[in-house]
């Protein structure tokens, strides 16, 4: 135990970006986790003494052993960032939900090579959830994690982060529930910690915080059975860490829709909310069409993210209308609300939240009247159309001296059109080499992300860009250094530009060869464009997000 020197318990966030605003080319080479060819990367553990006494050394059959004092070495040597042989998901649509590799344990080489592990365990070291592998087979590993946490706590301290080579081990203690992330993805500590917070939030959505009472009464309590059948909810949340910017922006996004269409949906939801519904939320996949809260009730974007993830990943909701207890951690973590859930089609669904356990028939009536209005106002077909058409495309960015009202897609040409107009100074993407942007309205708690287009058109590239944004977000919000107002970075992959004001945050990615002055100018154009079309991309008006 004594080997665990204080240097590994670095209380500081691991990634520091001492970048003065608008200073180009100070950005270090963007670390990439994609460069390792399959299986060919050499293992670092050339140190011959490293694993002889480790519990990993021999074949153990179904049993495994781990030693606390060796954990640092284990982390360093045993988990490699090699892309292993099973095919990585190629696109979001081919991503298969649910637990994979359930047969693995910590003795499996494949398990040790996974790039990003998430563990949930109880304060007595009993496993609750593991992203990969069988929880019970990983009981020894869970015990190790608990031992590390409690060892540090015995010294009246808290372990937040352990760095071991390329690996980071991030700990989050939530009462009797411990959450741990072990990864070599080079994500900032703040992001990983935020992801653990969301996983904990998802547990609360499913069980409420009253599960803590079970541990108070009985430290032996085994929580795993209570989470039966929810692997899919957690795996889909973890998957969303790599494609859904809401997981680090703490904001939600709307489905782009004509103002009148969204208004029509909002009006009928408002009617329903006035009849005793706490929240009425109409969503299309992870995007909001409209939402309404009862007076004084406020909905946190994280709650919405977790609720939408719960509903979208649970297949049974698509089969028929349902009435299920759910908990909104930021609204009231201690108790269940009841959710009436109905899918109008594969993508669009309604969630009516109430405090009344016998409101089902009332909510069903509400749904029927909502459905009537949605059909009459073509909301459902418009939503489908918006899904197909997408929202803002960098290619459509209007020029600056710009007059008159704008609508989404107004200037849009079909993407396969040979006459497609492009600005002369860039081969691909939008003006000035603009590839992508995210605009987050601070007042609205909403963000809009431009559609992905060439050259960022594979999920892998998208994930890499989001990771870069994540870093940018973390460094912009670093309390120690910040607050920053602008940041300009250039590396071999992108030029990244971030601009934070009181009203909004803009994250933009450009061609790595983009001209800085032009890029800044383009950002101004993006902001103007967002303002011009805000009626269509944001849910405006009385926000239920009033805290």
């Amino acid at each position, binding site marked *: 135990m004594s080997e665990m020197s204080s240097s590994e318990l670095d209380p500081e966030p691991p990634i520091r970006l001492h970048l003065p605003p608008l200073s180009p080319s100070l950005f270090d080479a963007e670390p990439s986790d994609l460069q390792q060819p399959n299986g060919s990367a050499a293992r670092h553990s050339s140190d011959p003494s490293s694993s002889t006494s480790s519990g990993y050394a021999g074949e153990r059959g179904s049993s495994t052993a781990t030693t606390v004092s060796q954990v640092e070495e284990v982390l360093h040597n045993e988990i490699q960032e090699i892309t292993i042989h099973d095919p990585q998901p190629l696109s979001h649509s081919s991503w298969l939900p649910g637990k994979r590799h359930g047969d693995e344990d910590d003795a499996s080489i494949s398990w040790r090579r996974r790039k990003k592990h998430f563990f949930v365990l109880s304060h007595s070291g009993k496993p609750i959830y593991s992203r990969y592998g069988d929880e019970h087979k990983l009981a020894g590993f869970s015990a190790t994690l608990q031992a590390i946490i409690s060892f540090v706590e015995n010294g009246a301290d808290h372990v937040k982060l352990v760095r071991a080579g390329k690996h980071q081990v991030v700990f989050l203690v939530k009462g009797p529930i411990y959450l741990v992330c072990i990864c070599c993805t080079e994500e900032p500590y703040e992001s990983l910690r935020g992801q653990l917070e969301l996983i904990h939030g998802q547990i609360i959505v499913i069980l409420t915080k009253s599960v803590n009472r079970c541990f108070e009464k009985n430290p032996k309590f085994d929580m795993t059975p209570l989470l039966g059948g929810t692997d899919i909810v957690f795996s889909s949340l973890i998957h969303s860490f790599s494609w859904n910017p809401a997981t680090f922006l703490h904001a939600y996004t709307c489905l782009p829709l004509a103002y009148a269409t969204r208004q029509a949906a909002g009006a009928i939801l408002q009617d329903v909310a006035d009849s005793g519904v706490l929240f009425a939320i109409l969503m299309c996949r992870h995007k909001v069409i409209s939402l309404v809260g009862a007076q004084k009730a406020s909905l946190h974007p994280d709650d919405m993210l977790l609720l939408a993830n719960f509903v979208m990943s649970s297949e049974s909701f698509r089969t028929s209308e349902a009435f299920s207890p759910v908990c909104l951690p930021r609204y009231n973590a201690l108790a269940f609300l009841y959710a009436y859930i109905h899918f109008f089609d594969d993508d669009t669904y309604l969630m009516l939240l109430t405090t009344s356990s016998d409101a*089902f028939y009332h909510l069903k009536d509400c749904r029927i009247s909502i459905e009537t209005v949605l059909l009459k106002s073509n909301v459902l077909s418009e939503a489908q159309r918006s899904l197909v058409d997408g929202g803002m495309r960098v290619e459509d960015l209007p020029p600056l001296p710009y007059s008159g009202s704008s609508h989404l897609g107004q200037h849009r040409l079909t993407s396969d059109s040979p006459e497609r107009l492009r600005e002369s100074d860039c081969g691909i993407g939008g003006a000035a080499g603009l590839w992508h942007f995210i605009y987050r309205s601070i007042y609205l708690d909403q963000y809009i992300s431009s559609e992905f287009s060439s050259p960022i058109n594979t999920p892998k590239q998208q994930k890499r860009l989001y990771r870069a944004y994540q870093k940018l977000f973390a460094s912009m919000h670093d309390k120690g250094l910040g607050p920053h107002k602008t940041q300009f970075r250039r590396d071999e992959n992108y030029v990244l530009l971030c601009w934070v004001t009181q009203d909004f945050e803009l994250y933009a990615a450009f061609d790595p060869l983009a001209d800085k002055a032009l890029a800044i100018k383009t950002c101004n154009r993006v902001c103007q464009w967002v303002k011009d079309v805000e009626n269509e991309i944001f849910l405006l008006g009385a926000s239920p997000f009033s805290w």
Partner: protein
Amino acid sequence: MGCGSSFPDRDSRQLGRPNSENGGGQDARNLRVKLVLLGDSGVGKSCIVLRFVRGQFDATSKVTVGASFLSQTIALQDSTTVKFEIWDTAGQERYAALAPLYYRGAAVAVIVYDITSPESFSKAQYWVKELQKHGSPDIVMALVGNKADLQEKREVAVQDGTDYAEKNGMFFIETSAKTADNINELFEEIAKRLPRPSDKKTFWSKERERPPLILSWSLSHLLPTNKAKTFSKRSTTKPPLDQFLSLFNLITVVSFHPPQSSNFISLSSNAAQYSLSAHGIIGGFQFYTVILPFFDYLPAIPSSGFHQLPSSS
């Protein structure tokens, strides 16, 4: 009990019309029944329901969250119809404590186990005990051994199911949602066993062994038009007979009052129980809602002559 909240919660415009969801169509020939499925997770509750309601079978198991609601109407040979309003509950352990939310007021409970899993059979017995303790006293219970197509993996003998069902006054059947074996038979048999509202003249069915248990009742918002006085009462015991009778009379008066479009009486049910309510103006007294005795179970509730009397007709 949700008596106080079930009506005031509702939109006022619902008061004037027969509630399509709750009150409609209840007579001796057209029954509406709340049915709840209970059982361990993975025994095939959803598969049974989807086979019955949609004729579908999907081998990939989809874990139910909370409870799904589906309905299906069947016609019996005696030309009566039964509409099953089915609560397909999640078998996961975390929902066990919340199960009363779904089985409260259910007229039928279908308890399912998997014939290849003794564990699910003992879970079924747990649900039987739970319903005997906390379910409606008149609940019709069916014990279902599902996955009967997996004979070679059978671990619960037919006899065990039969014996247990017999001992507990349940009806027993083995089904296969996969092959559709016995699925329709299950629901038809349930339909046949439902108590019928056979007596059209009296409030209490003569066949009943005892009068309906009045769990709670309330009279709310009785407002004389000139006095803003609210009389409201809730009770979990039987109201004194005289009060009950006067309410009863009130209902009767409204029912037979000269046609007035605003007067109505309806029998309604929500997830929990059944209630009578009335609304109208009689002799200068305007009363918005009278919520009458709540019964925790339905079967013998009033005959067609009594409920749903739109006074305008």
